[in-house]
C-alpha cells in the first residue's frame, strides 16, 4: 500500500501547488484589473481612508482632504467649488469622479509608479500613505475674472499662456459645487448627482473641454491662415466679396451678417477679416479646397482624438467629403465643422506665439507629501501651425478686428489686443452662439483666450460675438495683464 500512498502524497502536493498557483494568479497577475474594477468599492474605501493629495491653484488648495470622525476618515472639500468645478471635477463615493480628480487620481491617491519609493517608505515606517499634491497652472485672478464675466450665462472660457501652453483659466458655466457630491452619505450625494444630471446646461460636463460647437466666424482665422500659408495671398490681396455668394452645385446663396455688403465687389483679405465678410471667406474656402483647409486646421489641433491636458479634450472636427456648398459653409465655421473652446484658444495661442502652437497643459507640478517634486511639466511644441510671417500678418489683421472691426468691445486702453469674433448659427429658431478669441498684448502676447456664450447669453437673438463674448475676453486679458 505504500506505492499508492506515495502517489497520493504526490497528488496532494500537486493539489496544493495548484492552490498556490491560483492564489498567485488572483493576488498578483489579476490583482491590477481586480483593483481597478468599477464594482470594487474597496478601492474607494481605501482611498477615502488615506489622505488624498490636494489640488492647488496659485498656491492655494482648491480641493483638499480634511480628517473627519467617521468610518472613512477623510472628507474631500472644495474651496470655491463652483469656480473651479471644470478644473477639479468632483470626487464622490458612489458616483465616481471627473476631471483632475479622475485623471490625476493615481497621483492624488499616491498610487502612481512615480511615488513608488514614497510608498515603500510609508510601508516600512508604518505611516499612513498620503497622496501627492497636484499644482495646476490656473491663475486664480483670471479664473475669477472669467467666471464673474460669464455670470449666469451658459458658456466657457479658456485662457492659455501662448509661449508655454499653460492653461491660465478653464471655466465652464453653469458650474456646480463639488462639495455637494463629496459627502459621505451616498443617498444624499446620489440625490444631488441626479439633480445635477437633469439640470439644464449639463453642469457636470465641462463645456471648455468636453463640448464642441460650430466655431462660426472665429474659424475664418483658420481659413485666412490657410490662404496666407498657400503663398498666393497676403493680407492685402484682394478677394471677391459679393453681397451674395452662391457656391457651385447649389442655388442657396451665402449672405453676410444682416444681408449687408462687404464694401465692394473686392476687398483685401485683411478687410474681409476685419468686418468678418462671409461671402469672401466662403468663396476663398472653395478656391483653396477641402484638403488645404483640413491640413491647416489639423496643424491648429483639429481632428486630434488623443489630446489630453491631462483632461481629455474632445476632438474638434473638420468634416470630410465636402461638396462645394458644404465647403463654403465650413470655411466660415458653419455646418459640420466643430471646435471645443480649448481648440479655439489654441488657434489664438498659435498665432500669438509666432505660429508655434504649444501643447496646452493644466498640471504644472506634482509634489510628493514631503514636498519633493515628483513631476514637472515642461512646455512642449504641439505643432508649427503657421510660419512666423503668416502669424505676423494674421496678428495685424486681428488687431484691425479689435481696433476698428467687429471686436471693438475688447479694446483695452494702452494695450493692443488682437482678436476675432464669431456668431455661430445654431438650430433653426435658436439664438446663435457668441464667440470671441483673442490675445494680448499683440507685440508680446501673455495670454490667448477663447470665449463662447451659448445661445447668445443675456442678449439672446440680438447677440453677436463682439457684443457678448468680447467683453468677457477683455476682462480675462485685463486680469492676466494685471497679475
Amino acid at each position, binding site marked *: 500500500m505504500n506505492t499508492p500512498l506515495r502517489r497520493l502524497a504526490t497528488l496532494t502536493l500537486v493539489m496544493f501547488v495548484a*492552490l498556490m498557483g491560483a492564489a498567485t494568479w488572483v493576488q*498578483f497577475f489579476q490583482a*491590477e484589473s481586480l483593483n481597478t474594477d468599477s*464594482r470594487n468599492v474597496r478601492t474607494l474605501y481605501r482611498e477615502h481612508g488615506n489622505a488624498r493629495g490636494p489640488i492647488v491653484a496659485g498656491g492655494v488648495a482648491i480641493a483638499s482632504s480634511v480628517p473627519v470622525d467617521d468610518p472613512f476618515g477623510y472628507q474631500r472639500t472644495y474651496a470655491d467649488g463652483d469656480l473651479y468645478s471644470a478644473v477639479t471635477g468632483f470626487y464622490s463615493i458612489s458616483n465616481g469622479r471627473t476631471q483632475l480628480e479622475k485623471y490625476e487620481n493615481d497621483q492624488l491617491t499616491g498610487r502612481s509608479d512615480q511615488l513608488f519609493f514614497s510608498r515603500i517608505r510609508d510601508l516600512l515606517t508604518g505611516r499612513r500613505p498620503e497622496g501627492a499634491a497636484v499644482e495646476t497652472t490656473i491663475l486664480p485672478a483670471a479664473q475669477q475674472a472669467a467666471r464673474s464675466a460669464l455670470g449666469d450665462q451658459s458658456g466657457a472660457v479658456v485662457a492659455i499662456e501662448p509661449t508655454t501652453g499653460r492653461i491660465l483659466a478653464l471655466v465652464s458655466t453653469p458650474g456646480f459645487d463639488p462639495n455637494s457630491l463629496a459627502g459621505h452619505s451616498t443617498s444624499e450625494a446620489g440625490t444631488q448627482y441626479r439633480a445635477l444630471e437633469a439640470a439644464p446646461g449639463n453642469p457636470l460636463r465641462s463645456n471648455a473641454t468636453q463640448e464642441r460647437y460650430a466655431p462660426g466666424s472665429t474659424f475664418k482665422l483658420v481659413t485666412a491662415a490657410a490662404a496666407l500659408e498657400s503663398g498666393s495671398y497676403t493680407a492685402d490681396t484682394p478677394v471677391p466679396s459679393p453681397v451674395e455668394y452662391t457656391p457651385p452645385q447649389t442655388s442657396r446663396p451665402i449672405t453676410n451678417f444682416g444681408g449687408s455688403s462687404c464694401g465692394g465687389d473686392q476687398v483685401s483679405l485683411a478687410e474681409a477679416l476685419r468686418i468678418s465678410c462671409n461671402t469672401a471667406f466662403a468663396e476663398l474656402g472653395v478656391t483653396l479646397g477641402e484638403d488645404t483647409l483640413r491640413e491647416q486646421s489639423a496643424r491648429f489641433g483639429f481632428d486630434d482624438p488623443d489630446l489630453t491636458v491631462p483632461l481629455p479634450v474632445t476632438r474638434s472636427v473638420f468634416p470630410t467629403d465636402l461638396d462645394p456648398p458644404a465647403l463654403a459653409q465650413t470655411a466660415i465655421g458653419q455646418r459640420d465643422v466643430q471646435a471645443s473652446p480649448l481648440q479655439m484658444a489654441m488657434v489664438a495661442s498659435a498665432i500669438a506665439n509666432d505660429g508655434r502652437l504649444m501643447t496646452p497643459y493644466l498640471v504644472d507640478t506634482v509634489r510628493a507629501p514631503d514636498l519633493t517634486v515628483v513631476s514637472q511639466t515642461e512646455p512642449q511644441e504641439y505643432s508649427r501651425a503657421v510660419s512666423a510671417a503668416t502669424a505676423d500678418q494674421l496678428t495685424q489683421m486681428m488687431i484691425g478686428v479689435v481696433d476698428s472691426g467687429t471686436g471693438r468691445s475688447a479694446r483695452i486702453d494702452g494695450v493692443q489686443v488682437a482678436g476675432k469674433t464669431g456668431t455661430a448659427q445654431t438650430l433653426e429658431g435658436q439664438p446663435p452662439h457668441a464667440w470671441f478669441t483673442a490675445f494680448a498684448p499683440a507685440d508680446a502676447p501673455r495670454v490667448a483666450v477663447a470665449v463662447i456664450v451659448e445661445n447668445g447669453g443675456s442678449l439672446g437673438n440680438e447677440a453677436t460675438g463682439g457684443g457678448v463674448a468680447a467683453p468677457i475676453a477683455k476682462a480675462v486679458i485685463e486680469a492676466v495683464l494685471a497679475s
Partner: protein
Amino acid sequence: MASVQPHRVRPGRGTELLLLVPALAIGIAGYLLAGLGATGAVPPHAMTYAIGTTVLAFAVHVVLRLRAPYADPVILPVVVALNGIGLAMIYRISIAYAARGRDDADIADRQLVWTAISVVLAIVVLLVLRDHRTLRRYTYTAMVVGLVLILLPLLPGIGRTVNGARIWVRVGPVGMQPAEFAKIALAVFFAGYLVTHRDTLALAGKRLLGLQLPRARDLGPILVVWAASLAVLVLQRDLGTSLMFFGLFVAVLYLATERTSWIVIGLTLFAGGAALAAATFSHVAARFDVWLHALDNDVFSRTYGGSGQLVYGLFGMANGGLFGTGLGQGRPDLVPFAYSDFIVAALGEELGLTGLVAILLLYTVLVERGIRIAIGVRDGFGKLLAGGLSFVVAVQLFVVVGGVTRLIPLTGLTTPFLAYGGSSLVANWMIAALLLRISDEARRPVPAVRAIATPDVGVPLPPVDEPRPVGGGRSTGRTGTPAAGTPAASTTAPVRTSTASRAADAPGAPDGPEPDDNPTERLGGDRR
C-alpha cells in the same frame, strides 16, 4: 540502508515542545496585531488569551508525553499554528463587525470556546483510544453512523437549510454540521471494509481494455456510498461535501487495491452523477456558470445565485496583493462569510499572497506528515485510516480554497482549523488526534517480545492469478517473510525482483518481522 544496526527512534517530544513555541507565538502575535491594527490598542484580554492557548497546547503535549510518546512531533505544532491564525483572523473580523453594529460580532468568543472544547475532545480521543486498531472492530457501526450523519439534515424537524445547503442539524439551541463528523466515521468504515476486501476487489473479476473490472457483488457497498454522496449532492444541494466524501472513498479504494481501474470507475461515476445533476438541477448548473463567468456583469449582479460573493472575495485578495494590508488594515468585512467559507480571502487580503502561501505550506506539511504516518504504520487498517484522514483534509482544503480562488467551482466547505464553526473545529482536531495516535504506533520501536504478529489482513492469495510479492512495494505492514514473494515475482517482473529483494535483504530477511519494526529502515528499503 544495508546496515543491520538498530536505529534508535527518538520520541520527538522535545522537538514538539520546541516547535510549539513559534506555533503559539504566531497565533498570539496574530491576535495582538489584529487588535492593534484594527483598534490601535492591545486587545483587552490579550494576556488571558495567550495563557489560555498556551495551556491548551501544552495540555495536549503533556498527554502525548504520557500516552503517545512516539507520536509525530510536527502535527501538533502545525495544528496549533493554524488554529491560532484562524482565531486571530476571526477576532479581527469580529472587531469590524462590532464596529458596524452587526449582531454576529461574538464569533471570536464563540470560536475560542470551540477551540477549548476541541482540544479537550482531542485529549479524550488520545486517552480513550489506546490503539487505533480498536476502531476496526466498529467498521460497520461506523458505516451506519456515517450514513445516518450524512442523511440527518434531511430529517424534517431537525434539518436546517442554511444559505441554500441543507447540511445543518439543529436540536434546540445546539446546531451542528454532521457531515464534518461523518467524514471521520466514513474514513473508519472505508479503512475497515477495504482492508478486509481489498484482495477480492483487486483481483477478482474480468479484465477489460486493460482495466481490472471488479465483480458485481463486490461493487455493492461502493454503489451504496456513491448513492449516498449523490444524495448529498442532490437532496442537500451541497457539491462540496459530496465531493469530499467521494474523493475520500476513491482515494482509500485506490490505496487498498492499487487498481487504477477503481479511480477510473469512481471518477466516471462521480462525473456522470455530477453531469446529470448539472443538467437536472438549476443550482448546480448555476455554480458552473458563476465559476466560468464570475466577472460578467449580469452574472455578478444576479440577485440569487450570482457571483457577487466570489468576486468580493477576489477583490479582497487582490487588495492584499503580495504582502497584504497587514492584520486589521484591510476590509475583510466587505466579503460575505469572511469568517467561515471565505476566511481564505480575508487571510489573503490582510496577510497577502506571502501569508496565504505560508498557510498553504502549513497544510502541505500537515497532509504530507499524515501520509508519511500511513506509510510508516505497520497494519493495513492503520495505513488506510491515516491515508484517508490525511487525504480528506487535503480534499476539503482544495475544494474550499480552490473555490475561493476560482480554480474550481465554488462549493461551501469550511477551511480546516481556520474557519469559524464548532463542528468543523472539533472534527478536525479529532482527525489530528487520530493521526497522532496512529503515528505513535508507526514510530514506536517494537520490543523484541512483540514479534508475534497482530492479526493482519491482506494475506497474499495463493499465486494463482497474479502472485504478489509481499514486503516489497506492496508491503502490507507486518507480513511474515518478505522474501517469500520473490521467486514468483522474478518470473513476471524482473525489475521488481531487484527492488523487492533489496527491500527484503536490507534489514536481514531471515529475521522475520524484525526489519519492519523499524519504520525508518523499512521506509528506506521500500523506496521504488
